[in-house]
């Protein structure tokens, strides 16, 4: 887990292999949707532990539904995973609220956030990101630091640094696209080396 989700066509053949218990297909299913669930649940789960539990439970329930023949439309697989995760998250939150009279809505501390992001942070990815950050102007690098590390309100520092919401989106878009290009180049280079 931690790599970019490997794109694949979710067609009838994929669903058949999943239903048949094909190991490679199951591994791909868990890696692909496990990563998307990690990203989606980062804002919904109250803790790293809850995120892991909801993710695991969602994948199990979906696989079970596939094997019981409850999913017939391959194109609906992704949406089914998403819907199931919402329901599982609701169940886990309700269970937690039931046994915590004060409510479990304490804000997530900074170290918990790093824990949730742990699977996405790797030395090889950091090298790429470090180079991309080095290519930015001081102003743009500072903007990203204010946004990503200091967690400052966009409106507040936007006024201070003279940056519009559109500028922020474009900055993030360009950084993301450079990052994607590098990841694609590395993947191709690695595929070329193994041939």
């Amino acid at each position: 887990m931690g790599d970019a989700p490997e794109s694949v066509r979710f067609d009838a053949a994929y669903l058949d292999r999943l239903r048949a218990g094909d190991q490679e297909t199951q591994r791909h299913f868990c890696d692909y949707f496990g990563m998307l669930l990690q990203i989606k649940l980062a804002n919904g789960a109250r803790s790293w532990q809850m995120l892991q539990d909801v993710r695991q439970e969602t994948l199990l329930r979906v696989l079970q539904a596939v094997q019981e023949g409850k999913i017939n439309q391959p194109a609906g697989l992704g949406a089914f995973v998403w819907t199931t995760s919402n329901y599982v998250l609701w169940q886990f939150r309700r269970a937690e609220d039931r046994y915590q009279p004060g409510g479990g809505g304490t804000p997530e501390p900074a170290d918990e956030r790093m824990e949730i992001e742990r699977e996405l942070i790797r030395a090889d990815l950091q090298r790429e990101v470090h180079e991309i950050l080095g290519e930015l102007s001081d102003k743009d690098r500072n903007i990203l630091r204010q946004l990503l590390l200091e967690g400052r309100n966009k409106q507040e520092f936007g006024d201070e640094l003279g940056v519009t919401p559109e500028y922020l989106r474009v900055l993030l878009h360009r950084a993301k696209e450079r990052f994607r290009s590098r990841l694609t180049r590395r993947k191709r280079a690695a595929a070329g080396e193994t041939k």
Partner: protein
Amino acid sequence: MDHEEALKSQAVERYQLGEMPPEERDAFEQHYFSCPECAAAVYAATAFAANARSIFLNAKEAAGRTPARRRWWDWRNPVFAFAAAVLLLVVSFEEFVRIPGLKGRIALLSAPQAFASLALRPVARGDDQALTASRTDAFIGLAVDLPPGAAYGGFVCELRSASGAVLSVPVRAPAAPEEPLNVLIPTDSLKSNHYTLTLWGQDSGRPSAELGSFSFTLKIH
């Protein structure tokens, strides 16, 4: 939301920045769960942000540890003098405070002692159990009856305070099924607060089933 709409509306970046209203966020999530292209874009944006955050954090921490310009062993170096003073303080603290404190603690733990204990029962919300302990007590004891038929290779126990702090509690299976499960928790790690103890059965080293949650109020004087 379809792919064209996602591209036109800069959905990935707005999702990343938290600019979407809840309905739009749900629609976009449902879309990228089915669209490999958008899924890859969301992954890239999230992984970039996570790694950039880590890099910025490392740089911030490193900046706080900026080395002195002079050679550190130069006696005229105020940093060296400060470091020497800190070392003296640390050694003094260890010698005169912490080590005697540890010795006292070892002496306390080596002697027979009494401690406050409570037999926990599953309670509905609003129905509280209370335990009062002294700060001079080394431990509090909690006893939990296992549900009938709870035959597991091991157990996992977690103590959570009302403020969200979580303590993992080591647990040993009782000698016989009809005996309660007993846990001792050092009072050093506790404060006056409301707590919930949750117990799981364990199979193959993983928690497999929640056996119960037990709430109580602890007062330490």
